[in-house]
């Protein structure tokens, strides 16, 4: 089987991509997807660690994390919808009424 270390590396890469994307992309939806990447990086890590330690709780965490991610997306989309209703855009740059 694969050495868990590689999984960690993969998740690290995913995390970096996610974080990078989170503040490079304008589109709120894309940012949301980047968030998902980060969360999934975490999930991978959990699972890999669970295998490594032979400890079940890791799986549980992963499942919970997925649930959290799901609800996060739901809420995010709802809020963005509301935002779109008011601002007619979902570009995070253009929504800057509140500043300074």
């Amino acid at each position: 089987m694969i050495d868990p270390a590689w999984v960690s590396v993969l998740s690290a890469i995913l995390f970096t991509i996610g974080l990078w994307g989170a503040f490079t992309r304008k589109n709120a939806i894309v940012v949301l997807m980047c968030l998902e990447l980060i969360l999934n990086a975490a999930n991978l890590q959990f699972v890999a660690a669970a295998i490594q330690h032979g400890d079940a709780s890791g799986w549980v965490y992963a499942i919970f994390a997925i649930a959290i991610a799901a609800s996060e997306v739901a809420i995010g989309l709802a809020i963005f919808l509301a935002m779109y209703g008011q601002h007619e855009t979902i570009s995070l740059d253009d929504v800057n009424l509140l500043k300074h």
Partner: protein
Amino acid sequence: MGGTSETISSTFIEYAIFIVLLPMLAFPIILFLGHIFNGNQTWIKSAKEGGLIALPIMVASFILSMLLITEFIGAGTGSHHIGNWLSFGWISEDGMTINEKVFGVGIYIDHVTVMLLFIASFLCMLINIFSIGYMNTDPVNDNRNHRFYAEFVLFCSGMLGMVLADSFLWLFIFWELMGLCSYLLIGFYYEKPSAAYAAKKAFLTTRVGDVFLVIGLVMLWNLFDSLDYAVVFNEDLIAQVDPGQLQLALGMMFIGAVGKSAQFPLHVWLPDAMEGPTPVSALIHAATMVNAGLYLVARMFPFFGAESMHGELVDLAFIIAAIGGITAVMAAAIAFVQDDLKKVLAYSTMSQLAYIFTGLGAALWLANTLDWHTDDKAHGIVVVAFGAALFHLFNHAMAKGMLFMASGSVIHEMHHAHHDMHHHDDHGDDHHDDHHDDHFDAQSMENMGGLASKMPITATAMLVGSASIMGLPLIGGFWSKEGIIANAWRVALEDPRFFLPAACVLIGAAMTGFYMSRMWLKTFAGKPKTEVAANVHEHTPWIPIPLVTLTFVSLSSVILAGMMFTHWAGEPNGGYAFFGEKGMLKGLIYEFEHVFVNPDAFFFVLTYVAIFIGAIVGPGLAMALYGGSLKDGEKAKPWMQPIINLSSRVNAKRGFDNSAWANSGLSNALKERLYFDKWYDAAMLKLVAGFANISAAFDRNVVDGTIKTIESTSQKISTQVRRLTTGSARDYIMMAALGVLVIYLLLEVMI
């Protein structure tokens, strides 16, 4: 003998404090009564707006003073400790113990006190009488005389307090009190800008001196841990003091005296002080307050006389004499060109005080160098020198007080005459206004002349006073002035530096003779120069009383001389009986031969030189320039008529044209008072005020500006910082990501 003089027990000394307290308490009473009853007819008529409240008070304190004087005169010293004023802890030199020190309150009486006390209380009383005549009959003073009398009595209490004080501290306290009253009274006519300016000038100039006086006192305290005369005059304590320190301290105190007695270079305030009502000029700026400085210097005698200080303090003695000499000549010179009656007297005051300073300087020098504690001859010299100075103080106070009152009388009558002439048609309350409107100068001698016949009493008083100041033989100041000149030269023979003051006082004698005669002649001799002068009459009540009294006092100085005034006034250890050991007649003879047939050739010549220039040359020149006979058909009193005749004759024969020198640069300079006032004003306005404004601006812009700048910059920074909150969520996330990076790095460093 030493400094320890026998102290005599007294019955009245417990009550001496009331001499000071009575007038002091009268001050608020008169002020408030005046405030309440202002304008009330009874108040004006029967209380003379407070004048008749002040008078009994002054009489009472005069009587008390006399009781005291009769006990102590020529007898010795007495002191009465009333209580502690301040008590405080003081860490001793070694820094190991904290001792208790006190400033006390009390009465101290010795020969100097006695004399000053008499002058003060006597003149206060007389001038009070004079003021009632002078102030209450002048409409300009209506409804504010209560202020005058209140401040008057306050001043009197200040003067008497200063004289009776038993420590330099209380001397200073009352000294300042007098300064305040002088300020208030000079500014009595507050609506006149010139008066306001003069008041400020007087207070400020004397204040400069006072600062040094305070410093001097402080230094003295640190030398003796006390300021009480009883302590600081103690030979044994003086012996433990470093002479250099002591001389410094006394020098500082002397600067204070210079300010108060209007000596060069702090003399500028006295002429302007004549803005005040004439009684004020008479009392404060001629007879009493200006003597405070002399009194202070006279008080220093025990330090100079102490054996341990032998020869240590001569420099200070010289400085005192030199300042006196310079001022004597300078003031006399300026007096030459003054046309304002009171200004002439003011400068003459300045000059005569300078004489006394010179005399004191000489006396102190003698006391400091001769070993007079053991040698009786030396003792005699010192005593006479010191006594001569004090005697001149006495004579001058009496004469000058009288002169000012006489001049006041002249001015007053001039006013009335002028007033009656110009307003005979309407009599009403409009006095007030016209008094300011018309520009007739009632004080200028240019408007007078030939008053001898119209104002006999005044003229006589003026004559005697002038004679006393000039030192005409046998009259008033003659004795003391001769003494001063003689002693100045006596010292000069020992210490060449003293030639300066000695020469000054000698020349000064001639100058005095000139300007005093000039004044009298311009005022009383010759034809009236204006028709106002032609219509003057002498009819104001109250005024003659003090004039006559003082005339006799001045004339009687020959008797005082016979009483060995100089001895019991100058004898520091008391014990020289009032009527002298010799008795009246012997004393007189002694004085005469002492003065006129001095065995010492030098002093024999000196005496006659002085008499010659003072009594012949000076007056002769004056007569030649200003003499003149009265209007035809008018005759002065028999004792004046010859003088007038003489003057006119001299004028006729020796008269010469002095316009050349009258227009010379020197005389302009003198008219400008040698530019001192100009320079001082310039210094005040340009330097001090300029610097003050600059520093005010600095405080506002730089000191406060820094704070303001910090504030505004922080606001700017705040704006910049808030700019970072761009409003774009992406930037927020980026910042967070950076934060992650930073945290990561920091933690990595931690390990």
